[in-house]
């Protein structure tokens, strides 16, 4: 059925190009590269990294080709619905159930493919410098290549099974990479924590997939989406529970509250891993899942239903947003600040999906990937060059902006994007989410969004100040050439920190000291080597420029146009010709909207059309951008920046100011100290999970299981053995000895007794012989007579 559908789709629109049809190569090439690196990497001159980079570049080329061809396809569709390019090969078929492995390429997939391949390539180039000389260099590249293969498999999955396959491969690679330096206990525990926490969520994925199969009878994403959009399911509540189950998986994977605890601990891995997996690509897999199956969530949780003030996705997203931002304030580790920032931004994306702002959230995935990856790579660059492999802001950083201008510049640009400062990329995406919340009458989430913006700016300013400004400390002091009174103590402390951060610097005599850092750019002599700095530059540029692909403020809706077909599913015939008319009207208006003005009315008409849910399935269009509407948010951003700046100067700086008495407030004041302690202990969530739930549930269960094993199972086994033994003994005594031997002995005895009985006949006595003779003759004669009578 699907292959037939594929052919009709191709005939409907002109045949898709080579790149689009062969996009299945994109995950396959890194997959093969994984095996090549694993088997041959150690023998290759560059330790396998060349295979990894080559495979990612090849995938990038194909992804770029596919992107071009997709854009071409959309542009030439002239307002018709652009069907996805689906190709499936049967993977498993039994009875009536059948699912395949292949590709499902539409705008969303193309965006994600391009994003993942691009960032993977940059990160792999970065890694060749960063983990140079590492003891498991080849395995690192194998794992990171496998991760890319897994994410790409998930992104272009045409059915839920392949999606789960990619999901799980990513989970595995996350575990492998977080625990890359597993010799330290903290690192291996962080890897396990990441794996188990996401696993808890994966229960929801499996349950949800099973429910979807039960509701729609198919595992194909296209079928599921069309079914959900057309209302082809039984009860609304069933779909809702399926959506809830799937969302639980997203909570785990995308680090939403309350399963976010693994993400900050995941910073134990090498920094390129954090930048690739735990900021730009893997953690957005949950958001991607919601975006991919959006009709299920939209219909199931009745997002944008008239009168709804909150729903599960938006609430979780909102809570995550605020909680993570609050926790980012009390971190001393720069990577942990960025980790909480990632969690917070993921909360934004989820909240955006929860209020119906599909395009905004997807676009935020796109822009966030660039600037967050840039931020992490900057942190890695600083640790590589400036802070002597430490990530502690308070102990080993400060005042390095003068000596590392490019790194500082990229950081500032990315921070600006993150904070949502106008005309940087984050502004276009994050602000659209906040605007949509307000426009869709989810007022509370609007407030949450702008408070979050305030907090984001505030903690990033704090981090910026601690990292780049102020007096150089510890490792940074060494880098800046500034003498410190207790340099050696700081060196030891810095070395201790290495244990925490798990850099390849724990034991001295490691070969990480041996490799010589590469050459830096000539225009930035003190920045990190070029393999580190070049990706920084590229990402920084994108942090600024990528936002312009979809800027409502400037009337650009190009990105939206390219990806909307992922959502704008045609409802099957039989649902009314009015729906078809409205559909054509909506699409026609959209096409006009891509031109210039007049789009707003069309968008509102389309929005109204879908809110009745009988027209073509779309989500509410983003509201028209007005500077006046964006003003409150921008003002809060500015307020956050200034507040934080003053506080930073006051608390961390040397100059006295009006806010100086605030120094040491957390120690002096009990309530403030309590709040601080609450935040530092990560809201005691870890305590709850590990000590209370885990110990309270797992220990009794394990004790019961142990008791059952020893007493019941072993008892049964032992009892069987004992009874077998006793049976054997009884059989031996009674049957073997008495019966069998008795029979044998008896037969012998019969023979001997017969002999004994017959012995008197041979007495040797003549008289007796005579008696026998005549007696026998008499008997025989009698018999003869009797016979003849």
């Amino acid at each position, binding site marked *: 059925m699907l292959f037939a559908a594929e052919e009709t789709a191709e005939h409907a629109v002109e045949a898709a190009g080579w790149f689009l049809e062969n996009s299945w190569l994109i995950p396959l090439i890194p997959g093969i590269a994984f095996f090549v690196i694993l088997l041959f990497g150690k023998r290759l001159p560059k330790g396998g990294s060349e295979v990894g980079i080559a495979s990612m570049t090849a995938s990038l080329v194909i992804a770029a080709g596919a992107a071009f061809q997709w854009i071409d396809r959309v542009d030439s569709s002239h307002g018709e619905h652009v069907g996805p390019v689906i190709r499936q090969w049967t993977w498993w078929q039994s009875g009536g159930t059948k699912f395949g492995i292949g590709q499902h390429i539409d705008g969303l997939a193309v965006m994600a493919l391009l994003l993942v391949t691009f960032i993977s390539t940059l990160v792999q180039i970065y890694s060749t410098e960063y983990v140079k000389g590492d003891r498991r260099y080849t395995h690192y590249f194998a794992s990171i290549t496998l991760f890319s293969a897994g994410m790409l498999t998930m992104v272009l999955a045409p059915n839920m099974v392949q999606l789960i396959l990619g999901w799980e491969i990513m989970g595995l690679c996350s575990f492998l990479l977080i625990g890359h330096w597993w010799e330290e206990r903290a690192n291996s525990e962080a890897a396990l924590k990441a794996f188990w926490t996401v696993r808890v969520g994966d229960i929801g994925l499996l349950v949800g997939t099973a429910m979807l199969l039960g509701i729609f009878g198919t595992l194909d994403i296209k079928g599921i989406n069309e079914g959900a959009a057309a209302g082809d399911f039984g009860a609304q509540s069933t779909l809702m529970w399926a959506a809830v189950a799937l969302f639980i998986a997203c909570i785990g994977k995308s680090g939403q509250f309350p399963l976010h605890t693994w993400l900050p601990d995941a910073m134990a891995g090498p920094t390129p891993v954090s930048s690739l997996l735990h900021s730009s690509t893997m953690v957005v897999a949950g958001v991607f899942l919601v975006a991919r199956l959006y009709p299920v969530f939209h219909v199931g949780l009745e997002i944008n239903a008239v009168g709804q003030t909150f729903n599960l996705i938006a609430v979780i997203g909102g809570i995550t947003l605020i909680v993570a931002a609050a926790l980012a304030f009390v971190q001393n580790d720069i990577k942990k600040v960025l980790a909480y920032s990632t969690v917070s931004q993921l909360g934004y994306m989820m909240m955006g999906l929860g209020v119906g702002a599909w395009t905004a959230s997807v676009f935020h995935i796109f822009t966030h990937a660039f600037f967050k990856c840039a931020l992490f790579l900057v942190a890695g660059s600083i640790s590589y060059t400036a802070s002597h492999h430490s990530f502690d802001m308070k102990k080993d950083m400060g005042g390095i902006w003068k000596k590392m201008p490019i790194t500082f510049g990229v950081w500032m640009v990315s921070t600006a994007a993150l904070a949502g400062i106008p005309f940087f990329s984050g502004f276009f995406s994050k602000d659209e989410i906040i605007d949509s919340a307000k426009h869709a009458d989810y007022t509370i989430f609007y407030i949450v969004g702008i408070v979050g913006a305030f907090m984001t700016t505030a903690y990033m300013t704090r981090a910026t100040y601690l990292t780049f400004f102020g007096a150089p400390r510890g490792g940074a002091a060494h880098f800046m050439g500034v003498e410190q009174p207790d340099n050696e103590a700081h060196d030891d402390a810095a070395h201790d920190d290495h244990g925490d951060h798990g850099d390849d610097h724990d034991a001295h005599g490691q070969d990480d000291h041996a490799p010589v850092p590469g050459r830096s750019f000539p225009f930035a002599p003190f920045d990190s080597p070029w393999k580190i700095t070049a990706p920084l530059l590229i990402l920084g540029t994108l942090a600024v420029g990528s936002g312009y692909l979809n800027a409502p403020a400037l009337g650009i809706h190009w990105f939206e146009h390219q990806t909307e077909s992922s959502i704008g599913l045609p409802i099957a015939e039989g649902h009314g010709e009015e729906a078809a008319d409205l559909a054509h009207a909506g699409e026609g208006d959209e096409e006009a909207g891509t031109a210039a003005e007049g789009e707003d009315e069309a968008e509102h008409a389309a929005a109204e059309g879908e809110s009745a849910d009988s027209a073509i399935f779309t989500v509410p269009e983003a509201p028209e951008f007005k500077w006046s509407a964006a003003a409150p948010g921008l003002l809060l951003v500015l307020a956050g920046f200034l507040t934080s700046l003053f506080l930073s100067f006051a608390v961390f700086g040397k100059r006295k100011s009006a806010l100086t008495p605030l120094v040491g407030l957390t120690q002096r004041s009990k309530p403030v100290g309590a709040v601080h302690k609450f935040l530092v202990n990560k809201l005691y969530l870890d305590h709850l999970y590990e000590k209370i739930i885990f110990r309270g549930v797992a220990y009794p269960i394990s004790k019961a299981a142990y008791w059952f094993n020893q007493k019941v199972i072993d008892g049964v086994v032992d009892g069987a053995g004992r009874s077998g033994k006793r049976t054997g003994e009884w059989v031996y005594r009674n049957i073997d000895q008495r019966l069998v031997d008795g029979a044998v002995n008896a037969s012998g005895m019969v023979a001997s007794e017969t002999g004994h009985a017959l012995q008197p006949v041979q007495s040797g006595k003549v*008289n007796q012989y005579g*008696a026998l003779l*005549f007696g026998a003759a008499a008997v025989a004669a009698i018999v003869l007579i009797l016979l003849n009578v």
Partner: protein
Amino acid sequence: MYAVNFLLLSAALFSIGVFGVIARRNAVMVLMSIELILNSVNLNLIAFALINNDIDGHIFALFVIAIAAAEVGVGLAMVLMIYRNRRSIALDGLSEMHG
């Protein structure tokens, strides 16, 4: 007269001779009982010759007499041998079988 008389007489002699063979302990007495038996057989033969008016019965009876004589001669020689070896001719103790 009736032929049955001779035959019954011989039957009686035969039975008495059988009893003697079984009951007597002395070897010589057993031989005597055997003589009784042989004579009864002779009587039977003569009676049958009389019944069938055939002379063959007489011939057989003479054979039996001759054979009986030879047998007694040899038998008594054996008894004498036994007596010489064991000093007794009681048939009870003449057994070397373990029955």
